[in-house]
């Protein structure tokens, strides 16, 4: 069990944050810390726009950083469960990134 950091890019819509937080509780995971901000500068996320063929506009998406203490197998489950939420566009931990259906073996966020 080690502390890990998850980074999410998600739609800035009412209820989206509640879905992520609720999922942690539902599945029995604990949140150590949580930070959320709307994204103003999309330069670091241009690869998401290219990869998913979408275009972000100001105020549309947020960046969410969650710290949690879990083992490897559970971490993968958390990533996959969160990736399944409709309003989540991308999620990464230290080793991998999900861009919706696409899995990359590195932290891109």
């Amino acid at each position, binding site marked *: 069990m080690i502390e890990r950091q998850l980074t999410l890019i998600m739609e800035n819509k009412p209820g989206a944050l509640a879905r992520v937080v609720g999922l942690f509780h539902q599945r029995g995971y604990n949140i150590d810390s949580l930070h959320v901000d709307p994204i103003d500068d999309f330069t670091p996320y241009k690869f998401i726009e290219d990869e998913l063929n979408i275009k972000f506009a100001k105020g549309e998406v947020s960046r969410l950083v969650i710290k949690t203490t879990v083992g490897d197998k559970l971490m993968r489950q958390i990533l*996959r469960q969160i990736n399944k939420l409709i309003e989540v566009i991308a999620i990464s931990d230290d080793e991998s990134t999900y861009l*919706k259906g696409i899995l990359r073996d590195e932290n891109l966020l």
Partner: protein
Amino acid sequence: MKLAGNDILIQSLINEEVEYIFGYPGGAALHIYDSIFKQKEMQHILVRHEQGATHAADGYARATGKPGVVMVTSGPGATNAITGIATAFMDSIPMVVISGQVQSHLIGTDAFQETDMIGISRPIVKHSFTVDHQTNIAQIVKEAFHIATSGRQGPVVIDIPKDITNPDDLFDFQYPSKANIRSYNPPIDPDKSQIGRVVDAILNSKQPVIYAGGGTISSNASEELRELNSYINVPVTNTLMGLGVYPATDEKFLGMLGMHGTYQANMAMHNADLILAIGARFDDRITNTPEKFSPKAQIVHFDVDHSSVSKIIEADIAVFGQVKNSLQAINSLIKDRLDEINNFEIDKWHAQIAEWKKIHGLNHNLYKEESDNNPILPQAVVQHVYHASHGKAFVTSDVGQHQMFTAQYYHFDEPRKWINSGGLGTMGFGLPSAMGVKLAYPDEEVICITGEGSIQMCIQELSTCSQYKLPIKIFNINNLALGMVKQWQDMNYDGRYSSISYEDSLPDFKSLVESYGHIGIKITKNSELKQGIQKAFSIKDKLVFVDIYVDPNEHVYPMLVAPNGSLKDMWLSKGNKT
């Protein structure tokens, strides 16, 4: 075209080719119900309780593959729908639930019949929407149907405040042709390199088993599965949710696996060297103790949901995508390499399975003689129903012993014929889901096999059946107690029967159903059984409720030994363990 919010909502449903809306009106949904009144394309089915509406829509969806649609009002209407939404969620059934909400300016004020439907339903929906403006209704409905019916299917809730459906405010309406959701793209086609690995694994295996579940049915992949096995000829087992996807009367079929699976199915899974898990999720009722699950097997897992794979059992090869597409890809590759199949080893494997079948086949030595000296066996009821309906009926069930007996003894040859609450295990599901099936297929035989405990959880829907003239056949396997709980109390609590009995207060079901205008038949003796069931099937135009008193002490076997057991550890009869 300019329309008010209520008409936009209803026109959107018509655009989605909805046939039936299952629902119950109320204050916050009144504008919507006025729109329903004004149209002719869809029929609204007025249930007697919102739980019945969700189960009926669920039954419709399972039988047809099309999404079920539910309409409820705010507050208690919404909360009553929750059990049915959770049932659909656990079994990945496409459903769109529209709930009325109090007016926007009253939200958060504890207004009359206000409840936070989005909050209450959040853990049990695939997605949910709050409608904040009339101009968003059409897009939201489009997206809701798209989400409910694609990827791993599931229920979607649309919560719509009353002022948004106000008939006086008109807005432009044009139904969108596509749902564009940039943050949603479930996998469809499999990765080709993975398909190659799977084909190699199949050709190298000596003791392969196909383990197919409900995902194979929701992906409409029954034909592809049958085609695959026409090439590779391996034993097939189905989960409770998967029954019918492979013909039960095929000699390669092992029966259901898991908690109450057949001896041969569980033994084959335990001893396999390759498990092809197709649209199945290694539920705890399947694996028993996960650490002891199939010690030798290489696991190939086909699923549309990333989070299902390696959740309980680590997959050696994962194939993401619609199961139908993945199986098509396997089929087109493997049919040119059939000479590589190790027929000698596969034949040996079938011979081993034939030996297991002899040890505890479901039909061997189980039945006492059908004379009036012996009580009616619940298994015999299912067998008689199976024969009388020629194995072709749609069969719904509730939850408990009768459900397991039906899964074991009604041999389903086609997908979507077996309709039951597998994941959530919802008592009260059987009757309303049968209504949904009967509405979808009015000319087909629709049977509900239930128990005297379960049927009383949604018995008010007998009235709905009367109103819409739904000639369902209900077989009530009446053992005067909550049979499955009683079985566990027998096996694990030294027969201390805590709160399982209501023997003196059961209704006379025959006169109860007759008061709704249905036909009741009561059977208490073996000598009346076959004839009584045949009589029920001879009545075509009315609902028939057959109340059958069975042996109150019968248990469901085989049953996995838990905790700490593996799939080869089973109770085969009372006091007799493997």
